[in-house]
C-alpha cells in the first residue's frame, strides 16, 4: 500500500549491497526503483525522470568510501542533489519598502487566507511590524468574514469593502489606507483560482500590475500531485511570483510537489504551513524537505522544536550534562516528558530516524512512550545516570521489571546513544557534520 519512499529505497538499495563501487549496471536497476519512489511521493513524472538521470550521472564511477555502502553513498548523492534542487539556502521576505506590499495567490482551498493571518501574526510579533490585512476575495461565501475573524484573532487590522466587487480597486484603496495609517506591510488575500481559468488569471494579473507588489507569493497545498507542474507554471507565467508557500505539511504527505515546483519554476519556497492555527507557520529548510521526501527523518526539526519547548533552565542543565558527558536516561525521560507536552506525538516521533517506519500505521499517542518509560523506570538511579554499566544481567533484570525483553532494551539504548551523540554534536561544537548543517540553516531571524 502506502509505502514510503525510504521503504522503497531500502528495497532499491538491496540491489546495491555488497558492491564496491557504483557502476552502470547496479545504478540502472536502482534508478527505476527510485523513480517509482519519487513518483509515489508525488514528484512530477518528468521531474522524477530528470532527477534520476542527474543522480545517475553523479553516481557513476564514484568510489565507494570504506565507511559508506553503495546504497548509503547513493542516498547521500540523492539527498545532496535534492537539497540542491530545493534551493541551497532559505530565503527571507524583503521588507525594506514602506509599505511592503505582499500579494497572495493560489488555487482554491490551498490555504491562502489562513496563511495571510499567520503571516500578519509573524510580522507583528517577530518583526515588530504594523501590518494590514486586505480582503480581496469577493467570490467565496464568507471570505471577508473569514479574514476578519483571523485579523481579530491575531490582532491586526483588516481592510475590507463589503459592497465593492472590484478587487483591483479594493487593493488600491487598501494601499492608500495603509499609507495614511502608517501600516508598513500590506498583505493582500485573493480568491482561489484555477490556472486554466483565463478570466480569473487575468484578474490576478491586473491586480498585480496595478499594485506592483514587492512580494508575490504562490500558495500551494503540500498534498498536490502531478498537477503541481501545471499550476506552478501557469501562475508563474502570469505573476512571475517571488516565492512559494507550502501548506498543510503537518499532514503525512511526502510533499514531492515541493520538488516539482522548485524544478519547474525555480522559485524559492519561503514558508511552510504546519497547522491550522495562527502560529503554524515556519520558514522552509531545503534539506529538511529533501529528507522528508526521502523519508529519512527530520532530526534537526525534531531537536529544534524540542528545544523551543524546553524552558531555558532545562536546556541549560542538559547542555551542561552533555558537555560533561553525563547525559543520562533521566534526562532522556524528561525529554520524553517535554515531547509529550508538545502534542502531536506522531508527527514528532516520525521525525526520529528509524521510528518513522515503525509507527507508520500504528496509533500514536502519549501511551506510545509507555514502554520506554517503564523500561527507564525499571533502571536504578545509577544505571540511569551512567548507562555504560548496563550489562547483560542488568538488562535482563530491567526487562523482567518492565515487562519487555532484552532486545527492546538494546534498541532503546541504541536510540539513546544516537540521541546523546547527536545532541553532543549539535551543542558541543567542532567541525562535525551536524554543525555544518546547522550553520547552513541558521535559526530564523524571527
Amino acid at each position, binding site marked *: 500500500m502506502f509505502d514510503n519512499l525510504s521503504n522503497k529505497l531500502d528495497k532499491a538499495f538491496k540491489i546495491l549491497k555488497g558492491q564496491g563501487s557504483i557502476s552502470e549496471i547496479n545504478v540502472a536497476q536502482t534508478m527505476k526503483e527510485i523513480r517509482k519512489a519519487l513518483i*509515489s*511521493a508525488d514528484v512530477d513524472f518528468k521531474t522524477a525522470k530528470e532527477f534520476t538521470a542527474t543522480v545517475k550521472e553523479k553516481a557513476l564511477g564514484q568510489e565507494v568510501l570504506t565507511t559508506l555502502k553503495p546504497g548509503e553513498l547513493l542516498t547521500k548523492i540523492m539527498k545532496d542533489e535534492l537539497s540542491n534542487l530545493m534551493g541551497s539556502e532559505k530565503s527571507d521576505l524583503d521588507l525594506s519598502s514602506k509599505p511592503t506590499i505582499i500579494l497572495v495567490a493560489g*488555487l482554491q482551498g490551498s490555504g491562502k487566507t489562513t496563511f495571510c493571518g499567520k503571516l500578519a501574526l509573524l510580522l507583528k510579533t517577530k518583526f515588530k511590524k504594523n501590518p494590514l490585512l486586505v480582503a480581496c476575495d469577493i467570490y467565496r461565501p*464568507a471570505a471577508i*468574514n473569514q479574514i476578519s475573524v483571523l485579523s481579530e484573532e491575531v490582532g491586526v487590522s483588516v481592510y475590507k469593502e463589503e459592497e465593492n466587487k472590484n478587487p483591483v480597486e479594493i487593493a488600491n484603496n487598501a494601499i492608500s489606507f495603509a499609507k495614511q495609517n502608517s501600516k508598513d506591510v500590506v498583505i493582500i488575500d485573493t480568491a482561489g483560482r484555477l*490556472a486554466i481559468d483565463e478570466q480569473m488569471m487575468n484578474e490576478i494579473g491586473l491586480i498585480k500590475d496595478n499594485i506592483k507588489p514587492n512580494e508575490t507569493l504562490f500558495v500551494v497545498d503540500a498534498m498536490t*500531485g502531478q498537477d503541481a507542474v501545471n499550476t506552478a507554471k501557469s501562475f508563474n507565467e502570469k505573476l512571475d511570483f517571488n516565492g512559494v508557500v507550502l501548506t498543510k505539511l503537518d499532514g503525512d504527505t511526502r510533499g514531492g510537489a515541493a520538488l516539482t515546483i522548485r524544478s519547474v519554476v525555480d522559485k524559492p519556497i519561503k514558508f511552510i504551513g504546519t497547522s491550522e492555527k495562527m502560529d503554524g507557520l515556519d520558514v522552509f529548510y531545503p534539506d529538511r524537505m529533501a529528507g522528508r521526501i526521502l523519508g529519512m527523518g527530520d532530526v534537526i526539526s525534531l531537536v529544534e522544536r524540542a528545544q523551543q519547548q524546553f524552558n531555558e533552565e532545562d536546556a541549560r542543565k542538559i547542555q551542561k550534562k552533555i558537555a560533561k558527558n553525563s547525559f543520562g536516561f533521566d534526562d532522556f525521560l524528561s525529554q520524553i516528558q517535554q515531547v509529550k507536552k508538545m502534542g502531536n506525538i506522531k508527527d514528532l516521533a516520525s521525525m526520529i530516524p528509524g521510528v518513522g517506519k515503525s509507527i507508520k500505521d500504528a496509533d500514536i499517542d502519549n501511551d506510545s512512550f509507555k514502554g520506554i518509560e517503564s523500561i527507564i523506570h525499571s533502571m536504578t538511579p545509577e544505571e540511569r545516570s551512567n548507562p555504560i554499566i548496563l550489562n547483560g544481567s542488568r538488562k535482563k533484570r530491567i526487562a523482567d521489571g518492565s515487562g519487555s525483553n532484552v532486545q527492546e532494551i538494546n534498541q532503546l539504548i541504541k536510540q539513546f546513544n544516537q540521541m546523546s551523540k547527536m545532541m553532543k554534536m549539535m551543542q558541543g561544537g567542532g567541525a562535525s557534520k551536524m554543525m555544518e548543517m546547522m550553520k547552513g540553516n541558521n535559526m530564523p531571524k524571527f
Partner: protein
Amino acid sequence: MALFDKFKNIFSRENKSQEDKEIDKQKLDDSLNKTKSNFFDKISKKIAGKSKIDDNDLDDFEEILISSDIGVETTLKIINNLELRVKKNKYINTEDLYSILREEISNLFIQEDLEEFVIPKVNEPYVIMVVGVNGVGKTTTIGKLAYKFKSAGLKVVLGAGDTFRAAAVDQISIWADRVGVEIVKQEMGSDPASVAFDTLQSAKAKNADVVIIDTAGRLHNKINLMNELTKIKNVMHKIIPNAPHDVMLVLDASTGQNAIEQAKQFTAATKVTSLALTKLDGSAKGGVVIGISDQFNIPVRYIGVGEGIDDLQLFNSKEFVNSIFDN
C-alpha cells in the same frame, strides 16, 4: 527491476524458469545498452514482434497514467489486467491497446454509476455526513448537493458541524440561504457532535428527507481530530437509528497519492461509504480515485466542476476514464 516488470510477460509465453534466467541476462543488456530509461523498456522488444505497438506508444501510455495521479500500484494492477486480456489476442495495435486500457480502468470502479440525484428510500431522514481534509471543498459540495436535492423536490436540512474554522458557520449559512434550505447551527467553538445531534432532531421533527452534516476539515494523521469525527458519527444513531446512512469523503482532484492515506484513515474513523471528487474543472485529473475506489470498495458518486451552485455532477466512470486520455 523495472517498474512494470509484469508487462514483459504480456506478449511472452515462455515458461517461468527460462524466463528467470533470461531476466538476469537481460538486466545486463538493459543497463548496458539502454540510453533511455522508461518503465516499459524491457517489454518493448517483445511487443515489437507481436504487435504494432512501439516504444512511443508505451512512453505515452506511461506518462498518461502517471501524470493523471493514477499511481504506481494501480498502474501495475491495470497492467496486470491488461496482460490477461492481451494474452488472448494475437496481434494488437495502438488503438486496440487504448480501448482495452480504457475498459480495464473503468472496470476498477466498483459502482453502477447513478443516473440521477436520488437518495435511497428510507423511513426517516436520510443522513449524509461529509468528511475530508482541509480545503478540499466539503462545504461547497454540501451547498451544491443541497441544491440538487432541493431541485428534485426533497426537503433538505443542513447541519453546520464545522464550528472550528474561521467563519465556517457563516459560509455554510450563506449556502443554505442561497439554496433556500434550513440550517441548524450553534455558536463557533461549540461541540460538533452536539450540532449533529440538534440537526438530526430538528430534521426528524420536521420530517425532512435529507440531512447533510458538514464537518471541519482535518488532516487524517491527527488522531484526536479523527476520534472527534467518530464521536460525531456515533451520536447520530441516538436520534435516527441508521444514521448516518452515507459518509461521504470529499477528495480534491489535485491531491496526489496522499489521497490513498486519506481514504484509509477516514474509513478507519468513520467507515466512508461514498466519494466526491472536487475541482475537476481544473487541469488535475484526479486519477488517484481509481485506486481508492478499487482498493477500499467505495463508489465515487459526485464530481465538483466549479464553484457555482450548479457545478456538481454525477460521477460517470466512462467519461472519467475518457477524460484521462483526452488531452
